[in-house]
């Protein structure tokens, strides 16, 4: 009898845990009661463009109005592709938060091991592509143009198109087009770099994330306006934010900074046998070989990331760049290879990551109960709550 009673009590307790509304389980924190450390972290995560100049130090065309205007046109220009049919905007669709909602990544290369991410706020990050094989936004654009599985063109063709199409409208930027017929390889390279830097200048000026409800919430906390804070995030979303910051869950360890990515590389149990050539380990090799890496175009003092690059480490195997968590509203798929179609599936992955034997892994299972997974999801949706097109108008 005693055994039955004990078992009954245990069962009732377990049922209680799962059946009670989630609000019973977060601490119901008053908005005025964030600790000083938590507030410092919240401020650290608030959207800011202060780092633009530092992150794009090797792009002297940053903030130049003519480069921004040229970059805007180039971003949509199908003439930069070998087929003449696709542009940057094909995979980074303006009407869908610059996400690849039409799955063009897969249409171009059905065997692709990675997907095109959303690029709002790319100019506020370090390292580009999932393996970080580009160390500047401008060199990322150039690599796409010459990738046979992406825009599938080449620099000579791209520079010829640049001069033919834009020389008249952008004389100061494209003055070297005059000697194009006699241009040598290095002249072509320089003009190709101007093309990349113009696209990057456009991204840095116009493709920034909108201010989200989270950012306004931190503003309200800073102003001591707790009534406004309470109106901005509901209890469930605040509970999700608390989980996001919780060291036991660990999200903020990698997803930090104003873009919710520290631009680091971590192995999160997403590498697959046969696809290892696309990880950070391979990215480092490609970066060092790249004709457009920082050290080839700038002084060593401007390239600390490359000067002190982590090269000889087992930790780069199976590691991919940490993506931003802002503006996932339109994101059609998640993780470097697009294996998940929902944020619920991503959270489930972190709750129970599959590991390979003898492989370095940077995460531990996040102990999240079902109602906590919903709270975390609610918070992530807060980060994509800005209406990009509306705020750009």
């Amino acid at each position, binding site marked *: 009898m005693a055994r039955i009673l004990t078992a009954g009590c245990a069962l009732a307790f377990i049922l209680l845990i799962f059946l009670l509304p989630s609000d019973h389980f977060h601490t119901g924190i008053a908005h005025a009661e964030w600790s000083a*450390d938590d507030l*410092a*972290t919240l401020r*650290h*995560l608030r959207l800011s463009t202060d780092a633009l100049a530092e992150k794009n130090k090797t792009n002297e065309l940053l903030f130049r109005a003519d480069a921004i205007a040229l970059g805007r046109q180039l971003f949509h220009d199908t003439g930069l592709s070998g087929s003449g049919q696709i542009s940057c905007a094909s995979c980074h669709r303006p009407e869908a938060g610059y996400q690849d909602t039409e799955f063009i990544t897969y249409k171009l290369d059905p065997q692709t091991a990675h997907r095109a991410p959303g690029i709002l706020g790319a100019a506020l990050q*370090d390292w580009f592509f999932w393996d970080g094989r580009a160390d500047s936004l401008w060199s990322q654009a150039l690599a796409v143009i010459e990738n046979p599985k992406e825009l599938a063109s080449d620099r000579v063709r791209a520079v010829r198109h640049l001069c033919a199409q834009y020389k008249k409208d952008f004389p100061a930027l494209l003055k070297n087009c005059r000697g194009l017929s006699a241009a040598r390889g290095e002249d072509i390279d320089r003009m190709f770099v101007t093309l990349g830097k113009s696209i990057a200048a456009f991204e840095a000026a116009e493709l920034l994330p909108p201010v989200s409800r989270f950012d306004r919430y931190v503003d309200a906390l800073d102003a001591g306006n707790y009534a406004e804070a309470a109106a901005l995030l509901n209890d469930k979303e605040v509970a999700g934010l608390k989980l996001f910051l919780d*060291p036991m869950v660990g999200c*903020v*360890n*990698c997803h*930090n*900074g104003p873009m919710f990515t*520290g*631009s*680091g*590389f*971590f192995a999160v149990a997403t590498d697959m046998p046969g696809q290892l050539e696309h990880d950070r380990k391979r990215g480092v090799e490609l970066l060092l070989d790249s004709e457009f890496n920082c050290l080839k175009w700038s002084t060593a*003092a*401007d390239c*600390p990331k490359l*000067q*002190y*690059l*982590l*090269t*000889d*480490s087992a*930790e780069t195997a199976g590691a991919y760049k940490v993506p931003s968590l802002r503006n996932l509203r339109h994101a059609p798929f998640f993780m470097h290879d697009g294996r998940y179609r929902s944020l619920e599936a991503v959270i489930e992955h972190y709750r129970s990551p599959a590991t390979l034997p003898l492989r*370095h*892994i*940077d995460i531990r299972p996040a102990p999240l109960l079902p109602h906590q997974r919903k709270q975390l999801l609610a918070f992530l949706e807060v980060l994509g709550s800005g209406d990009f097109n509306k705020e750009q108008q």
Partner: protein
Amino acid sequence: MQAEMQAMSRRLLSIVLVCCVFWGEARAALPQIVAKLDGPVSATVNQFYELPLKVSDANGVGLPGLNLQIRGRMPEHSHGLPTTPRISEKGEGRYLIEGVSFSMPGRWVIEILLDNKLLLRQELTVKF
């Protein structure tokens, strides 16, 4: 850039690692190590830091020409530094470690090795 990094280093992370190495009668014996730390033991994520290091004998005389290495790790996680720092000699037993960066908030351990043997272990807290 170098000047900026030096200034940042002085301002934010005035860590001076002083290693007093007492060489015993026999070189084979493990040296007695005394480490002295000045200034706050904290840093910010994703910034570059320089760590000045001095290695001296028991009488405070600097030891130049040592084969030093650096490594860093997070004890609560399974990873090390996100960069490959470099150590250069500055004369009279002074060394400068450049390119130290921390990819994650929390407790980090920095270890200085002499001929691949542990010389000094230093903890620091990294914050946002």
